């Protein structure tokens, strides 16, 4: 599926993000462009520190855009984002610990966005959101520190879903989860996308997760895009760039000394 010349639901053009000044300057993203069509699932993979999270944060209005434009539904986004933007676009952060308020119960974490946006039936929505991510009602009045890592990540996903957004920006949504819960969350995300016509931009360091979830993907290194691939090109190991090929080899697992990467 190629959507490169049709205008996407989300369109990122020559995006640049720079943090700090002078000697502390970090060019986290330097000229990244991609389009994501309505209902599509788009993947971002790449090296640690290559700017993947920063791209998602920039779409969300949480990182300073120093160059380029980001368009949503045909309109260039302005900083700061309007509250209505967050009804349409929600992000699941890489770090579920930092993103959940330590002194708020799970119930509060989930009902707060409902109250802010004035949605009806908060009780029912909180219950359904917990069921959706495989957490029973027993978790409702616990605090984040009373949950395991994976349980917290599911709360973070439930919080993003509860406003029924059109677009989910997912930053390593399953890297804290064991294989069985990962499979459940990936199936859930897959089913929701088809049922509600959701659009995903998914960051993962796991090529298998991206191959499973995304029709197209971009590979990043040092803030730049290395190449854009379709799912089928990835599946057939048809990468044209050295770095992507290394990723594919490394995905096969650890090989003791002497074997090359």
């Amino acid at each position, binding site marked *: 599926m190629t959507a490169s010349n049709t205008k996407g639901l989300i369109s990122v053009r020559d995006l640049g993000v720079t*943090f700090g000044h002078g000697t*502390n300057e*970090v060019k986290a993203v330097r000229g990244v462009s991609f389009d994501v069509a309505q209902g599509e699932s788009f993947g971002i*993979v*790449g*090296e*640690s*520190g290559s700017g*993947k*999270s920063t791209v998602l944060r920039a779409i969300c209005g949480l990182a300073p855009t120093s160059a380029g434009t980001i368009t949503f539904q045909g309109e260039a986004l302005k900083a700061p984002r309007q509250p209505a933007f967050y009804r349409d676009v929600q992000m699941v952060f*890489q*770090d579920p*610990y*930092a993103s959940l308020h330590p002194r708020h119960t799970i119930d509060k974490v989930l009902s707060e966005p409902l109250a802010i946006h004035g949605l009806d039936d908060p009780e029912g929505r909180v219950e359904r959101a917990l069921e959706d991510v495989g957490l029973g009602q027993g978790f409702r009045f616990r605090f984040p*520190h*009373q*949950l*395991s*890592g*994976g*349980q917290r990540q599911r709360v973070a996903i439930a919080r993003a879903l509860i406003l029924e957004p059109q677009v989910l920006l997912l930053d*390593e949504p399953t*890297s*804290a*989860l*064991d*294989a*069985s*819960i*990962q*499979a*459940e969350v*990936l*199936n859930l995300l*897959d*089913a929701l996308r088809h049922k509600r016509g959701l659009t995903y931009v998914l960051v993962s*360091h*796991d*090529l*298998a*997760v991206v*191959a*499973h*979830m995304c029709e197209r993907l971009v590979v990043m290194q040092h803030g730049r895009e290395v190449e854009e691939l379709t799912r089928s090109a*990835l*599946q*057939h190991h048809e990468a044209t760039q050295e770095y992507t090929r*290394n*990723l*594919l080899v*490394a*995905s096969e*697992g*650890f*090989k*003791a*000394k002497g074997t090359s*990467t």
Partner: protein
Amino acid sequence: MTNMLEVKNLSVAFPSRDGPVRVVRDVSFSLGRERLGIVGESGSGKSQTGRAILGLTPSNGTVTADHLAFDGIDLRGASSSTWRQLRGRRMSMVMQDPKFSLNPVMTIGRQIVEAYRRLGRKSKSEMREKALEVLSSVQIRDPERVFDAYPHELSGGMGQRAMIAMMLVGEPDLLIADEPTSALDVTVQLDVLRILDDLVRDRGMGLIFISHDLRLVSSFCDRVLVMYAGRVVEEIAARDLHNAQHPYTCGLLHCLPKIDGGVRPLPTLERDPAWLA
């Protein structure tokens, strides 16, 4: 030869409205100078097992064990001075969440230098030199910048590596690494594993590697404990993981997505209440 670590019938319980809940139940194993993997589903008690060994159970939890010894030292009810001699020196733990265990208001460099300072007197420039060295050893490309950065200025994977670097400072005999590579891309992940591998081979460190990534564990560890609902349900040589007996372990192996395309939806686990027995 006695084992570095002996654990017999370790349990951890937390209070709840319906009385104490045991999240770790009668876990027993021993560890030599080897790589032991602990896998298991989210909430199965992997982290709490690791924390109990290091005496880092949250204050509302209760730890019991028939035997819990590191290098012959009984850890049950160990005094705080014993812990001071052990923790950060002879045994260390890389916590599951780097941002949680790194001090948010202190630069990475200062935190590492602090760790060196606690170990003994060295000059300031010497400690800085050492800190930069240990940062590059975990494949951080621009150690100078990371040295001066605060945790929130790092990417997920950089924070995780800074955390590992800090734990390596004490050159521990036993390292418990809780999901140490879950935020790393595969190439860096392998670099970090190689560092840990070297420490086990060259320095004879004992490593407990907690992970939910079966593929990784089976290619990296010598032995694997599989946990389910607080119990060890299977202990198996890593290379035999594909011949696992317990239905939970087999189920875990089947739910992984594959690069070259697999089934959709992914197979999920049918949990059998009998596994809890």
